[in-house]
């Protein structure tokens, strides 16, 4: 991942050879596009790492930078400029995709801070029982049984309205639990953004647990939605 580098290190521009600060996308001297700068996703948008972001402003900045960096703007440029445009735009898009989504943004920031978080989109460990939130053990167990039953009924081509109603109820409940986690997370955002180092460290710990719980819940909701929609 991208580490925060010392941005005071000067780098020579590939085109005019004059040294410049490495966090810039265009050479201040000859205006030529530069390779992807070091630094994190926040710095792409000249932002401090914060969990509460002004999303409309982020979008405007994304559009402004896209207009300058996108490969479409370099179709007639030298090969090296094309290459940097591609790399810079990929970085810009990756950064925007991560920061605009509250959950991805939170996970990203936690990782920057050195927290251990599982891979969000890994196909592994989706039903890892060790990660079942302790207060939900019983309900999750019941729900998984019902899901299995429903799958079997579906495979036999049967419908089971009672089971369906029960699953719909469960989905509602778990949807509510996801929303509750989101509310808790928003509270933590404020605590982290405004807190000192000690407060931040404590908040990070809580957020890691919340994200684990949320991921587990939303996977469950997805499974239920899938089978109800089938």
């Amino acid at each position, binding site marked *: 991942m991208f580490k925060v580098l010392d941005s005071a290190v000067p780098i020579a521009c590939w085109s005019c050879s004059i040294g410049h600060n490495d966090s810039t996308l265009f050479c201040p001297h000859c205006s030529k596009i530069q390779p992807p700068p070091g630094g994190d996703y926040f710095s792409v948008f000249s932002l401090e790492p914060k969990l509460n972001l002004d999303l409309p402003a982020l979008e405007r900045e994304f559009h402004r930078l896209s207009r300058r960096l996108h490969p479409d703007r370099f*179709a007639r440029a030298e090969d090296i400029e094309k290459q940097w445009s*591609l790399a810079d735009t990929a970085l810009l*898009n*990756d950064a925007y995709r991560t920061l605009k989504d509250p959950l991805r943004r939170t996970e990203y920031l936690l990782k920057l801070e050195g927290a251990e978080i599982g891979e969000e989109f*890994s*196909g592994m460990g989706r039903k890892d029982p060790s990660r079942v939130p302790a207060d939900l053990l019983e309900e999750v167990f019941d729900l998984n049984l019902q899901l299995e039953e429903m799958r079997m009924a579906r495979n036999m081509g049967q419908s089971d309205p009672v089971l369906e109603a029960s699953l719909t109820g469960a989905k509602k409940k778990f949807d509510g639990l996801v929303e509750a986690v989101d509310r808790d997370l928003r509270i933590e955002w404020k605590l982290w953004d405004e807190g000192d180092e000690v407060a931040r460290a404590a908040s990070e710990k809580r957020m890691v647990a919340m994200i684990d719980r949320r991921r587990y819940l939303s996977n469950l909701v997805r499974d239920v939605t899938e089978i109800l929609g089938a």
Partner: protein
Amino acid sequence: MEGDAPVVIPGVDGSNLVPSVVALDPIPPEGGRPTVTVGNSARKALIETPERVIYSVKRLMGRGLEEIQSELKLFPFHLAGDVEAGEVPRIQLGELRFTAPEISAYVLRQLKRNAERFFGAPVTQAVITVPAYFNDAQRQATKDAGRMAGLDVLRLVNEPTAAALAYGLDRAKVGTIAVYDLGGGTFDISILKLRDGIFEVQSTNGDTHLGGDDIDNLLMAIALDEIHAEHGVDMRAHPSAVQAVRKAVIEVKIKLSTEAIAHFDIELPNGDRYQREIPREVFEQLIEPVLNRTAGPCKQAMTDAGITPEEIDEVVLVGGSTRIPAVRQLVDDLFHLAARGKKPHIELNPDEVVALGAAVQAAILAGSSKSTDELLLLDVTPLSLGIEALGGTVARIIQRNSTIPASATEFFTTGVDGQTNVAIHVVQGERELATDCRSLARFDLKGIPPMSAGLPRIEVRFLIDADGILHVTALEQRSGKAAQIEVKPTYGLTDEQVESMILESFDHAEDDFAKRLLIEARNEAETILTAVERAPQSPAWAQLTGEEQAAIAAARDHLNAVKLGEDSSLIRTATLALDQATRRFAELMMEAAVSTALRGKTMDSANEELGEAVTAPHAMAPAEFK
């Protein structure tokens, strides 16, 4: 672009569309390689020599053997017998074999020629559109086809996005647009947000084998079964008769878009006639299952974009199949249009709107038009990119609907002491297991310095470029060595293969642009000269004044004199002059054709013939109709 507006370049036959029909002409009697005919003029070969014709090749692009085999069950062409596993499958066309990109290259080359004829200058660069739901292999195959056709492919643009660009050009709007694109062979749905000239795709979905062809195949299966049951004729034994049925099916389908009822009337090989009425309601019942397959992708695209139907401001219809009233009804239901007092956009010809959008994108890339200066297209990758993890599951590294270019970095290590290579399997798709996804490539990271297991740290960077095509680079971090990557694309041609096909596909006489222009100019001259020669036999000739006849003769002699020269523009000018001189004669003949047509035929078919006549290359062309 003409000024600020894109226009479609017509072909030699005057038509704006070049259907993707490719026919291999018979081998010339003196031997040598047979020539290839593309487009409208290849259509008649569908009935005359069906074993030498291929159409809808787009459905075969970038596909593996098994996929093509299942696809081909519905089509009259066949795979070459001796296909080896891992090779790009070839289609048998007469005595020759072609890969899908080669066939596609013939279509592209025809378009290139049409453009060169229009501009009077070589055309070497192109923007090519592809279905938004095309995967990496299908995109790569399309780029390969472009290269084989002698084109530098500046950009692949997703078709629905191109359509939005064509519509959005003259309206600086803010809003959310859904583009529903049901073509001959593919279905796409894309949802875009438009703001300050930036077209930002939010989500896309689709089915790369769903389209008008499926409707045709469905109706054909029914017709062929009925013919078998009622007349005892197994049409499958008569390829050209099957093509006659296909033609009739397509005519019925088109007619039912405007009429309440249509008829089949087909002469069978045994002399019987297959006659049947198809009311629109019956047709709509039959095709309902096909059309309903577009609903799922539409709903998924809305879910992925995080919006409800009510949040969609405009719906754009693209593709010939959206002319079917039942399709429009389905779209209306999906996006709650009528209920909100809205109508889908159909102002631009659904067969041309994508090409118009591609021209806009080309102008953006060329920076050549003021009107496109402020426009920018931000597209997405339609399918998630993943790598096969332990146990055959998929670890997703780039999610579908990510704005492209997009990248992801993954770290790999070794599992055994001294291991010097690591195999990586890259897949594309949304399923949990790698075997259910589309295999893109297997990479072998080689040349890893021997170390204890788990110690090497190989950084692999996956980058999807603005064309939606994947690039991979790798670096062993501890040694700082760029790891060697050996890419084995699961489907697709190697660079060497593409290069050799470029050479194979070039007829050297045509390589030379000036020479080609000359040949074309001479051909055009010959066409009109032949028509003029036959003119005195026509009753219309006697209606001309002596002066008019003399003017034609003079223009004819002049063209005869210059046609053997080497200057194509001189020949073309003389051809145009002869065309001018014969204009009144052509009008007289047209009138005669109309009255003949009206006497013997229905108004409909007369109109149809006239429609074709009007778009013919020369005013003399009606003489070609019997």
